């Protein structure tokens, strides 16, 4: 039985547990059935260590529940970024990292033999040339050091494009990093820069911030790479209840993001079905890039042409063209903010004034079911709801009736 290690080799190992502790937060030890109880204990211990003050617990009837709890409007940097900072390493890795930074500079170049000698002298340790060469190769691939060939030998120096040099060109870059680490894709990379440059976010707070995003960024990186290179992909998909694992393939086109709920989806063109589908990033695993796809550009253009009819993420069923029409009561004197909201959130739907305090919102979409949650946010003022998909309309009225019964005193 090995000794417990705080750091991990495989990110996917921590990804699912961290998500469950954060998103759900009600599972006790017995609910985690994916792996053994000992695996659960180890992952729990790691997450407790990474999350520190954000890890909470309570006793319930089913046992002790551990969960990650935070008010996202108050955190300067996403605590879940810690998962990306937990990669394990060897003693050689950390020693060579610091001796390379100590000995190399951007002005002079060293051969591998000279570099190895200097490292051995300064550290008092014996490193063989091949070990140092491998580390240099790895760091050259990362972009940290530069390898230049002179005659038959490689000479190494430190890369010179450092953040402080960029700051001289653009002094506002530091503040920009503080902002974008909380508001752009791959915020953890901004956090890496902040750690390295000793920057702290003392300027910005973020509302409607969805911390769990970061756990899907490994998948996102693979997907963007496929989109950029116009490659088809294959991936493993787990259904919402976690009971079915399937493998899908297709051509990735775009990433759909909900600013309101934080969900992220891959928009995939499936060649067999000849249509677009959206898949949640947090349900995807093991993305592999396949062949170059000549038609990828055409699918992107097709999607762009159809985006205004996708209200959420559904491309609909057979109909492909549904109309929804909502008549609302809005007190013009006191409720101008409702009209503002209809315009702000209505995704270009037509809004017309029928008479004093009565308005009509109309929108053509692929799937009016996608609009149902948004429509219900106007509860209390919907005079009439009509549409071409009668199932959606009937469900709305049925829901209102059920809610009336639910809240009856």
């Amino acid at each position, binding site marked *: 039985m090995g000794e417990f290690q705080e750091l991990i080799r495989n990110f996917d190992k921590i990804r699912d547990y961290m998500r469950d502790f954060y998103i759900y937060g009600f599972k006790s030890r017995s609910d985690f059935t994916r792996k053994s109880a000992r695996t659960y204990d180890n992952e729990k211990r790691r997450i407790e260590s990474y999350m520190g003050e954000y890890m909470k617990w*309570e006793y319930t009837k089913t046992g002790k529940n551990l969960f990650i709890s935070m008010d996202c409007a108050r955190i300067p940097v996403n605590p879940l970024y810690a998962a990306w900072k937990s990669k394990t390493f060897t003693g050689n890795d950390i020693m060579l990292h610091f001796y390379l930074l100590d000995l190399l500079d951007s002005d002079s170049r060293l051969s591998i033999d000279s570099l190895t000698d200097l490292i051995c002298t300064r550290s008092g340790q014996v490193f063989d040339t091949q070990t140092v060469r491998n580390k240099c190769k790895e760091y050259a691939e990362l972009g940290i050091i530069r390898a230049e060939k002179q005659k038959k030998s490689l000479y190494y120096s430190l890369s010179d494009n450092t953040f402080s040099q960029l700051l001289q*060109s*653009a002094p506002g870059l530091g503040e920009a990093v503080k902002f974008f680490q909380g508001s752009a894709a791959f915020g953890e990379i901004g956090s890496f820069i902040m750690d390295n440059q000793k920057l702290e976010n003392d*300027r910005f707070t973020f*509302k409607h911030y969805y911390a769990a995003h970061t756990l899907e960024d490994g998948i996102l990186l693979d997907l963007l790479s496929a989109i950029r290179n116009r490659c088809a992909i294959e991936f493993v998909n787990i259904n919402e209840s976690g009971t079915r694992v399937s493998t899908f393939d297709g051509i990735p086109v*775009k990433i759909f993001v909900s600013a309101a709920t*934080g969900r992220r989806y891959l928009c995939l063109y499936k060649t067999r079905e000849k249509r677009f589908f959206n898949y949640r990033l947090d349900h995807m695993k093991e993305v592999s890039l396949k062949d170059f796809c000549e038609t990828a550009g055409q699918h992107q253009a097709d999607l762009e042409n159809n985006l205004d009819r996708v209200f959420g993420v559904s491309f609909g069923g057979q109909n492909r063209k549904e109309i929804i029409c909502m008549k609302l009561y809005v007190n013009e004197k006191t409720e101008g903010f409702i009209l503002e909201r209809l315009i702000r959130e209505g995704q270009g739907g037509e809004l017309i004034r029928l008479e004093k305090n009565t308005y009509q919102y109309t929108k053509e979409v692929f799937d009016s079911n996608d609009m149902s949650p948004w429509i219900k946010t106007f509860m*209390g003022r*919907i005079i009439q709801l009509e549409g071409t998909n009668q199932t959606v309309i009937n469900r709305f009225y049925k829901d209102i009736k059920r809610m009336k019964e639910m809240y009856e005193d």
Partner: protein
Amino acid sequence: MKINNHLFSEVYGCYFTVVKRILEQAEGGLTRAEIESMVQTDGFYDSAFHLLPKLFSGEWDLMEQRTDGKYYSKLLSKDLTRPMTDLEKAWLKALLSDKRIQLFINPEETASLSDALKEVPPLFLPSDFHFYDSAADGDSYEEKQYIDNFRIILKACENHTPLTILYESGKQNRTKRLVVPYKLNYSSRDDKFRLLGVACQRGGHVKKTTLNLARILTVELSAETSAESYAKNPVINSAKNLPEASTDALTETFTNNIQNPFPFYKFFRKTKCKEPIVLEISKERNGLERCMLQFASWEKQTEYEEERDCYVCRIYYDGQDETELLVRVLSFGPVIKVLGPSTFLAQIKERVRKQYRWNTYEEP
């Protein structure tokens, strides 16, 4: 150029960051306690247990203990900041295509950065993403006045320099206000910046304020920025005379801002509602999953109720989010039942009652 796509690398790791900070400060020697304290501050909660033995034993041969008992770095360099990786550069390059970058960097600077980063492709492009439900009335990041205002406010947030702001309310009323800026808040859903600060009202009263940046017409540093006038500033004085906050909050503020102890803690400490919103979530329509994601950004607790085969979720919220939460809860329809608190429940009931009347042709 192909980027090494390893997001998960030890060079970004917490241990490397902590050891870097220790080594940079160990030139003049650090005591064991000082090193332990640095690991406690910058490491994970349990890192000291795993990291320190390797550092002190010499297993990671980076430090040496001398006769004075202190630990010294074996490295000669005082700055161990690593050059940026290509992945970091690609991320920065992607930011240059974001419309919000103009708030921080002018076009000439952007061109200069673009040139400096010419060897790496941007990690992503704005066209890679489709934000299907973001607000149609986001802030105008291209407007010169907006950019100028943003930069003045951002700079003022650094030292919390008082600002004189001409503000237009939602009802088009214009008022001039004296505000001590605290932080800038950004909402991705609304695509808006808001200034959080403390405003001076008539009679020297002070109040926490949130101002939409898009509604700020003009902003200038207040004339009262010298130390003397700052001390006499009615905002600062009335703020200081407010009832004392908790010791924790007081310590936190003074620790973070020794030079300028404006008592923001009195205004921006956590103002949780007295009672959380309590929701009963059914298993219908994947309600649990949807609900957990919808309310993920709030502090919450969830529990399974075996007897009733449903989940009960408690959401702890700031009072100013109440309307937003109300609307979000309604969007779930009968999948969620509000159990409390009574005032929140009453609002839900009222909306349901009104809606029912509309649909049964009763007068609402």
